């Protein structure tokens, strides 16, 4: 039984970790967008 739980738990863990990593990527992209917005504003 422990094997089944381990297997299933691993899949969940892996998928959630992946989503977390992608989420961090998204946060970084948003930060860069903000950064660019700041750069454009004074000029416009």
């Amino acid at each position, binding site marked *: *039984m422990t*094997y*089944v739980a*381990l*297997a*299933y738990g*691993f*899949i*969940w863990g*892996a*998928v959630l970790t*992946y*989503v977390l990593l*992608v*989420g961090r*990527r*998204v946060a970084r*992209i*948003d930060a*860069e*967008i903000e950064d*660019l*917005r700041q*750069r*454009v504003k004074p*000029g416009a």
Partner: protein
Amino acid sequence: MLSSMPSARKSNTAFVVGLLLVLHGFFVVTLLVANAPQEKTMGIVQKIFYFHVPCAWLLMLSTFVCAAGSLAYLFRGSERGDRLALCSAELGVLFGLCVLVTGPLWARAAWGVFWTWDVRLTSSLLLWLMLVAYGLARRYGGAGGRRLAAAMALFAATDVPLVYLSVNVWRTLHPTTRVVSSLAPGMRLPFFLSLAIFSGLWGVLLTLRMRVERAQSRLLELTIAIEDAEEKSP
């Protein structure tokens, strides 16, 4: 121009919803799987089957999609194809890892060994390694990296039929593909439901990742455009 760029965060909420739906589905699946009849010889460990097989299917699907995207990129210069190849390769590595972990766990309980070098396991491991190499080629390949990776994806796709058919052609420890078509009635629903939900999860993750990738390349274009503009009018 900046304001028209889709915020990566807004589309996120849609995907969190989708993801939650899929996670909910997982719970449903767990209940169904728990209630499914137990297999005679292996007992409760056989339940890993409901997760292991969908992950294997997703590994093969990801490879094919990666190859398709690579084809579009190589022969038609499609940037979107290239992005598709990258994203599906990542998912292939993810779900391939799941297969390669759940498989040995099941094997340890059922056959007593974690690993054996039969065709099915070896070719699956190779397929996973090829997808990892795809990522390496893209990241560190330098000038020709993307094209090299795309070519690799084409070769990796030729491994997929080998992975799938190997159990039918050679006698190995691993169960044959006939297992799925001859499932006991009580097992069919949980299995196909699990397969459908995993596929749904794959689709959601792929779309999510594609959008992030598209945002990334648009961001790069914008950054370059802005820097060019800044240079011209100091």
